């Protein structure tokens, strides 16, 4: 081989070696959800327009809306700290506790928003824009470069709803001591409720089933199933995946729906058709109005 040829091949190898990491970086700056591919560069523009006011310049959840200055040095504007993307600990996942979420999970969170918090559903942004944001949010944490997302949990098909299923769910609610935090009637007023803090030592409320219909991580039965089988990482809500079987988890879903006394659901209707259920629901429904009309004298 001539010196010229050697030099040429060396140059080629060098060129290949130099582009390889670039390709890897390009891969890292992306998010993938079905046919959608988000790009970090585009997401960056959006982040510094829409998100950084709360989530902060560094993505650490200490934007100016959280760390208020001026007249309110100690009082943040928001009462729930925005997500710290640096830690890469996310509540709403389809992956087991302690693992990174799928791109799809983050994408869904951006579009859904979080009830009872200041995070709105960003449906004003296009799907592509939300995908771009997910790609950029992932760049805040080195974890997305070194770790893979967990294997998503399998949610088996929902079995047919029955009174037995609801009753068994009620037993599980007792046995698993869900009521310790969520309260015996699911109002978020259990004996441990007032002591709860999240992983940033901020006080946090357990979910109150008696008002509203949406959960932190969605509104469907499947979402509810995932909430307690994956746990909401960064909060006191643990994962029950190692503790209950899939069919039991569905029973619990059915029962939890009956705690939502203001939300019409097939579970509530069925439970109300039984004697025990009707009594329970009647005692839990608030009668009357704030003005006092409708209350029996």
């Amino acid at each position, binding site marked *: 081989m001539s010196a010229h040829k050697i030099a040429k091949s060396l140059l080629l190898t060098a060129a290949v070696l130099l582009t390889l990491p670039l390709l890897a970086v390009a891969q890292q700056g992306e998010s993938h959800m079905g046919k959608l591919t988000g790009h970090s560069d585009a997401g960056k523009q959006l982040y510094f327009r829409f998100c950084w006011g709360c989530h902060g310049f560094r993505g650490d959840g200490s934007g100016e809306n959280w760390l208020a200055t001026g007249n309110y040095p100690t009082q943040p504007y928001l009462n729930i700290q925005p997500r710290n993307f640096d830690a890469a600990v996310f509540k709403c996942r389809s992956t087991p*506790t302690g693992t990174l979420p799928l791109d799809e999970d983050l994408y869904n969170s951006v579009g859904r928003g979080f009830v009872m918090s200041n995070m709105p559903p960003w449906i004003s942004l296009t799907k592509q824009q939300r995908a771009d944001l997910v790609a950029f949010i992932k760049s805040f944490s080195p974890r997305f470069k070194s770790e893979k997302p967990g294997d998503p949990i399998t949610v088996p098909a929902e079995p047919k709803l029955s009174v037995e299923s609801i009753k068994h769910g009620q037993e599980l609610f007792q046995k698993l001591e869900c009521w310790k935090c969520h309260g015996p009637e699911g109002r978020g007023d259990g004996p441990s409720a007032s002591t709860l803090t999240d992983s940033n030592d901020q006080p946090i409320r357990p979910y109150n089933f008696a008002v509203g219909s949406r959960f932190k991580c969605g509104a469907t039965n499947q979402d509810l199933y995932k909430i307690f089988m994956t746990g909401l990482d960064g909060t*006191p809500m643990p994962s029950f995946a*190692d503790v209950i079987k899939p069919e039991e988890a569905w029973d619990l879903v059915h029962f939890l729906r009956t705690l939502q006394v203001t939300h019409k659901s097939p579970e509530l209707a069925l439970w109300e058709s039984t004697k025990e259920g009707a009594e329970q629901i009647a005692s839990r429904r608030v009668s009357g109005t704030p003005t006092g009309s409708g209350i029996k004298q």
Partner: protein
Amino acid sequence: MRAKLISITAALALIFAAALLHARAGGGTISGKVTYEGTPAKPKPIDMSKEPSCAKQHATPITTETVVTGPGNSLENVVVYISAGAPDDAAPSEPATFDQKGCQYIPHVLAFQVNQPLKVINDDQTSHNIHPLAKVNREWNKSQPPGTPPIVDKYDKPEFIPVKCNVHPWMHGTFAVLKNSHHAISGQDGGFSLPNLPAGKYTVTGWHESYGEQTQEVTISGSETKTVNFVFKAKPY
């Protein structure tokens, strides 16, 4: 010829193993005592009335374990370990066990190695949730009702991880995930011992959950025993 070669290799291997064992079993020791100076905060009694199944296990209410002291100003629950100078050890296969009993963590501070199996048991008649608040490692949070199998996990990076149970807010503990096998936790008398240290220069670190950490340099030669004492400044709150 072949048999001869095998036997020679075997003999060599044996000698090598013996030499290795000798180095492990012999070696120097670092031992000493951990004490405090100043006035530590008084341990507070824990109100477990919200958890009767645990409250009845304690004849007198137990106290918080953030600072546990003994006679002669001794300080308990200090993790003493070799932070520099020793090579990283392969993880042992026997698990480090963390028990939940009477709504208390036993032990309060558990030291184990990177990638060593960690086993969490619930001996109570109530549900606990084990929530190690890892920052470097991955944070997880699992429910463990009574009678369920142990939770087995491991950590792949060294870190001091605060552990809590959200259901029972008084339950606090620590996982000390360390890089090598040379670690000890100061006992009731504040004493500790790090045996089997090959000759070398070591950095010994003492870590306490409220009083922070201290380091000292120690050089070990042969099979001598060196005394290293740690004195922590107590905080009155």
